């Protein structure tokens, strides 16, 4: 699926009012479906000491998505960021969620990187990507964690999306593979599996690039990833719900009246 980023985001405004109403109604319905496809945050409760999901779609439907799947022993948490936003992004996100569900339901014991490897295969096959130059360039960036409650290990694998861990006030960044879930420019490689021995009260953060790429109303500059890390680090002592609140406030303050450029997703959880 080829996606072009519209220069004018308010395409709906160009449509006659009746059509607009119809489209909006349709999008609202699509939004409901997309939300329904994403897991109920309630499944995270009880398994995690604390968590938050900051999900700020740019449009009615979103190209970012979050995902959670759990069994008695394991839980999978992922934050995905599809190419584009709005409807095209949403469609990709639905693809991503479906594939993740397929994979997790078939074998929860897969390593995090193998889940991504498999997802990439599914996406490439779905989008008929074969490495030719005229292939659709759509893809999904994702950060994915598998938490094993028995072994107390956390596996992380990332497709262009990192994982931030804060342990005893110290921030550690686990860098992702510089690959996306989709055809690579030259050659697809296997994703790396990071295995982390967790400790109680360790906090982890998965996120899309919407927050750090947001332009500020005053500065007309991106928030930037290093500031994002700094802000995450500065809130780490707070409960997760307050962290979400502070993050959202910080985002809104930075954005001001400026247009939100992309969907924003930040997932924080504490073990």
């Amino acid at each position, binding site marked *: 699926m080829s996606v072009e980023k519209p220069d004018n985001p308010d395409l709906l405004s160009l449509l006659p009012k009746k059509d607009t109403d119809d489209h909006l109604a349709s999008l609202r319905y699509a939004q409901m479906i997309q939300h329904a496809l994403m897991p109920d945050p309630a499944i995270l409760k009880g398994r995690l000491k604390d968590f938050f999901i900051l999900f700020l779609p740019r449009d009615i439907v979103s190209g970012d998505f979050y995902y959670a799947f759990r069994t008695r022993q394991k839980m999978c948490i992922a934050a995905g960021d599809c190419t584009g936003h709005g409807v095209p992004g949403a469609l990709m996100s639905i693809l991503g969620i479906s594939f993740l569900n397929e994979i997790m339901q078939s074998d929860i014991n897969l390593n995090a*990187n193998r889940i991504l490897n498999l997802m990439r295969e*599914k996406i490439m*096959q779905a989008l008929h990507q074969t*490495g030719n130059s005229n292939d659709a360039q759509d893809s999904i960036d994702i950060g994915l964690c598998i938490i094993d409650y028995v072994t107390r290990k956390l596996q992380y694998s990332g497709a262009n999306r990192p994982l931030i861990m804060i342990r005893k006030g110290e921030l550690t960044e686990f860098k992702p593979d510089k690959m996306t879930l989709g055809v690579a420019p030259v050659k697809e490689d*296997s994703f790396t599996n990071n295995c982390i021995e967790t400790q109680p009260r360790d906090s982890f953060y998965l996120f899309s690039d919407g927050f750090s790429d947001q332009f500020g109303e005053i500065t007309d500059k991106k928030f930037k990833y290093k500031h994002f890390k700094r802000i995450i680090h500065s809130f780490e002592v707070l409960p997760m719900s307050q962290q979400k609140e502070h993050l959202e406030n910080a985002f809104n303050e930075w954005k001001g009246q400026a247009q939100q450029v992309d969907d924003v997703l930040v997932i924080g959880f504490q073990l």
Partner: protein
Amino acid sequence: MMKLKAFRIKNFRSIVDTGWQNISPDNITCLIGQNESGKTSVLEGLKVFYSGIISEDVLRSDLSLPEVSCRFTITEGWLIKITDNPGTELKELLSGLSHLELTRSWIADLSSVINVSGEISQYLDSLEDAWRIYLNDVTLKLEEEMISIRDMETSVAKLNNEESDIRSKLVPDEVKVLSFRLFRKKPAEVENQKNSHFPGLKNQLNVLQKQKEEINEILLKKQFVKKAGEKWKNLQEKCTQIDNHLKELSLKLEERHQRMTLLMRSIEDDPDAEWKEVLYDYRKTRAERELRIAELDSHIAFSGYIIEGSTEAEAENKVSEIIQSYKSHYNSAFLGKKYFEHCPVFELFEDFGSLLPNRIDMEDIISGNENVEGYKAARNFLSLAHLDYSFFQQPSSRILKQKIENINNTLTRNFHDFWQQSIGRNNKIHIQFELEHYNASFLGKAGKPYIEFWIKDEGERLYPKQRSRGVRWFLSFYMELMASANISDKQMVLLVDEPGVSLHARAQEDVLKVFENIKDKIQIIYTTHSPHLVEINKLHRVLAVQRDDLDSMRSTSRILDPLQLSSASPDTLTPLQNILGNPMGSEGFSSKRFNLIVNDTGSFYMLNAIILLMGFKGKICVIPSTNISSIPLLCNIMMGWGMDFAVLLFENDEEIHMAEYLKSSVFKTDSNRREIIIKMPGAFLNSEDILSTLDFKNHLLESREGIPVPNSVYLREKELPRNFLLSRFLSNVKEGKINAADFDEETLENFKLITDLLAGLK
């Protein structure tokens, strides 16, 4: 009827002694082995058993002479029917025999004799042995008698001497007086001497005379013994002379054989007349020797009776009696010759030059002119069509043509039962013959009938000679065999050297079909290198021929029966391993390694690639099955050969089912109670699933499209050439184009699982 059961060949080309080799009870025996292993020598050995004709080039370098034995099954009591007046003991023996052994052995002039061997010859030999023992006893007695006679004669001579001495002392008076004068002795002294010695000397003389008379009396009685002994010595000397002469002639023959063997061709400069003279002399001397030995034996027996006191006339009579009592009127050679008349015909089909001709004159067929081209093939053709000359006497040409057309159709239909090849998709060949007459342009033949043959398909009508070598070969072969099966009133052993070498694989399988069809009438022994001519589920038919020293063409050949095949070299077993799917010449069943059976060739490639990539050093031999259904057969073979093995099964429906089948109906553990059904660790549907999808794409497919299903499913769905891809993969690994470092951690982890599994098999 005699049916070949086993054979044994000694001193024939590269063969020293095959030992007894049973041929397949279902009448089709297959000899496999490398080139120069001695397969054809086995066939030729059997052929010459029948023909008896050998040349120097079959002799071994030590010039030991060939001997070929065949064991035939017979119905009990059959030998009695064909043996006249066998005598009580022999009759009893013959009536209980269910098999018969005949041995053809060659002598220095390369002529041969067929002897009955086995139990019958043992019996005949035992009679002969008893006869020899008797003759030896008599000979000893005769020797003793001769020594005794000589001693007595010596004694007589000695007594004569002593007598002379004494007599010389008892001189007449006038002699004594003269002596007195001469020696100047006094008469008184002489008288004194005379008085003291003369009475003693006279007594001695009497005693001596008495002794001499006694001895002479004995010698007189033994005069016939002496005469017999002297004749015995003469005969013995003659025999020795003949033996020595034979030895000289044998040496001359051996020298010639040696030269021929070394030159591998006939000696052109050898004076023919001289050679013939030697050969004639050899044969004549052998015949004479037999006569002389018979004469000697008879004379020894005669001497025995003379020693016992019989008169010469009485002894003559007793000799024939004792010979009859000791010796059967049959001997091994006589019976061998008699039984050989009923022996199956051994025919070696090595030359199929007698191909179906384009045309043949009726006159030549009727007159049986074997010199005309294609006569044999044409005769076979007509035999298959059940035609004789009367058929062509049909006055109505319309009816004749209709009959010929019907026969053509029948023949073609019958041929198609065996020949499945098509030219193009559905275009099969048709055999056709037509009766024609020469026109006026053929001077001398005008108006005479001839038969013309065609092999036609839908597109073309061609003469036999215009067809491919394969078609011509198969057709000729088919006709020869079917005709032989039809017309032969004797059992036949058909020896075929590498049938179908010019045939397509499928046509080679058709050759097997022909064998199957005629095996009830004809026993077949054939050699082959082709996997298409060995039926994997009939390994009891296989005999493997190989050299004792695989690297030396001068070493001797030996034959391994089906139960010994495991000890044959991988090269010898190539046709079998090709059928079983093993594509690597240097690998194969191994009694020194642990054999791991896998589902197919693809998995064989993959596992070998893993072994190479991981540098696994264990002694594992991966054996690919042709397909999953062949696994029980392979297991049975391995068990039969007493080899260490296990079966590695993947997690697909067929192999899960196979695991259940093997457990329920075949076995669970080997003789050492080891698990021999090993399920592949991990959920691998097939061997290609051992690779991660990414490595599968990178190293096997060399493609980048998304594959969301297991690799094996992808290959199946896309109908990709699995064996080719995996073979290329192994090849790249061998060439070092792919190394362990090129794989991702998922694949390496799987490789580790495999090598751990292999290590556990040791």
